[in-house]
């Protein structure tokens, strides 16, 4: 496997953030490896457990692999331009409507074809493996893209905890169903709850992460708090948010967008400039990186597997990616 050189400077360091100093102090106290453990404990000391790791709380991270030196999308854009239909179909809707979304208490059931099914408390998830900063490109099926410093660890770290059985071929992810808190779920725009799926080998790939934060802090609610997946070589909708259930199954799951419009959104949905969406081209993308209005006029070419072909192309060897789009 090819491990690219990570970015020299952690994005959290070059990004001006509020309460920056406190984070510095915080980081000073944590050794690089195993920092998350320490961090969890330290956070618990700092305040009531109900608040400490909710949206915006600082997380201590180590630098992860697969970095990129592309310009980061500003924090403001990552947190105000969101596709999160559970709250709203307007891009600026989730930021406001998810403000009071409760992410504690929170549990994630991991079940299905596994040796040791288990329900994880969110605070256990945060401590399961060292939290890494993973700077990934994020390509939306709509034709825009971002570069986001996620915080998380390989999804495989979680899946190994439950010992998948040999029969398990796919992993199904379910987002919370809570129309009281999620106004978008009161309309049948999609068939709630939101379901996504990956092949088991995709889910076990080191690029696929279980994500609990971005920009060095706990996930903002509108970005899928408290826990989501990030699968950077696929269109953004594959990276399911606010997870409550992960099931290992034998049959290919029916993911929500595929069910809604099978000719437009496939199960795989790997980023592929050669396969257009039936209603728009996927050859180019508009990068949202805070470079200003005129710079954003120029689109950039979309790369196969969102530029992660070296890492993931072999997963699809021999497959017709036009058929399995």
């Amino acid at each position, binding site marked *: 496997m090819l491990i690219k050189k990570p970015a020299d400077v952690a994005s959290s360091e070059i990004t001006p953030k509020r309460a920056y100093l406190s984070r510095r102090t915080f980081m000073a106290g944590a050794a690089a490896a195993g920092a998350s453990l320490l961090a969890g404990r330290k956070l618990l000391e700092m305040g009531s457990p109900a608040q400490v790791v909710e949206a915006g709380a600082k997380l201590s991270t180590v630098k992860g692999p697969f970095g990129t030196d592309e310009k980061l999308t500003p924090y403001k*854009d990552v947190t105000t331009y969101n596709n999160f239909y559970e709250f709203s179909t307007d891009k600026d809707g989730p930021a406001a409507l998810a403000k009071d979304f409760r992410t504690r208490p929170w549990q994630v059931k991991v079940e299905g074809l596994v040796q040791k099914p288990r329900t994880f408390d969110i605070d256990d998830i945060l401590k399961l493996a060292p939290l890494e900063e993973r700077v990934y490109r994020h390509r939306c099926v709509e034709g825009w893209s971002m570069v986001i410093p996620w915080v998380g660890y390989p999804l495989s770290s979680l899946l190994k905890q439950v010992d998948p059985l040999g029969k398990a071929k796919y992993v199904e992810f379910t987002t919370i169903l809570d129309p009281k808190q999620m106004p978008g779920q009161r309309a049948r725009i999609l068939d709630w709850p939101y379901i996504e799926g990956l092949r088991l080998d995709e889910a076990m790939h080191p690029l696929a992460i279980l994500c609990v934060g971005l920009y060095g802090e706990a996930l903002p609610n509108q970005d899928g708090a408290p826990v989501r997946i990030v699968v950077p070589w696929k269109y953004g909708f594959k990276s399911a948010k606010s997870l409550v259930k992960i099931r290992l199954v034998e049959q290919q799951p029916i993911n929500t967008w595929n069910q809604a419009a099978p000719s437009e959104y496939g199960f795989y949905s790997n980023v592929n400039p050669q396969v257009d969406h039936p209603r728009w081209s996927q050859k180019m993308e508009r990068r949202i990186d805070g470079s200003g209005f005129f710079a954003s006029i120029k689109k950039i070419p979309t790369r196969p597997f969102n530029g992660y072909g070296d890492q993931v192309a072999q997963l699809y060897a021999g497959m017709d990616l036009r058929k399995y789009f």
Partner: protein
Amino acid sequence: MTRVGWLKLAIFPLCLAPLGLLVWKAANANLGANPIEAITHSTGDWTLRLLLVTLAITPLRKLTGQLWLIGLRRMIGLFAFFYGCLHFLTYIWLDQGFDVHSMAKDVYKRPFITMGFTAFVLLIPLAVTSTRKMIQRLGGRRWQWLHRLIYVTATAAIVHFTWAMKKDIHRPIEYGIVLAMLLGYRVVAWARASTGNQPKRVPEVTGIAAD
């Protein structure tokens, strides 16, 4: 000045306000994460809204008996065309960067672009023949027939809007309902007129000549 004159003087800047707001927001880097998308949506929305206002004038004047309202129609219709031009320009310049090859493919391959393009192209003859001279040259009846193209444009615009949506089409449907009401009014008025239980129609063109 006449009543229509004063009203036009007030409505003119009102019709420019959406553009003003866009420019002001752009100058203050306040168009959100994806400014070009914001501009595309705003100019598209206003094209459609003004098309519907234009189409509302005939029913309004007939229902209220305020026949002078016709004097507003040309200006508002031309503003619809103006925003349509901005919407089109946003697409060819800001979105496609004048890439003729990619645009030609888009128009050919993508029904929602084809539909939007059709809607826009059909507005051009209406804008061109909006002057008093052109009305006289064409003659009222022919002019009126030509300008019924706006029904096609407005319908195509709604379809364009619907097909551009990923999934949530409640907004195009809302606009569609308004359009259906405006066109429905005409169908009913026409049916009544042809069965003869409607007072004589007010000729469309006299109002324009009088403004």
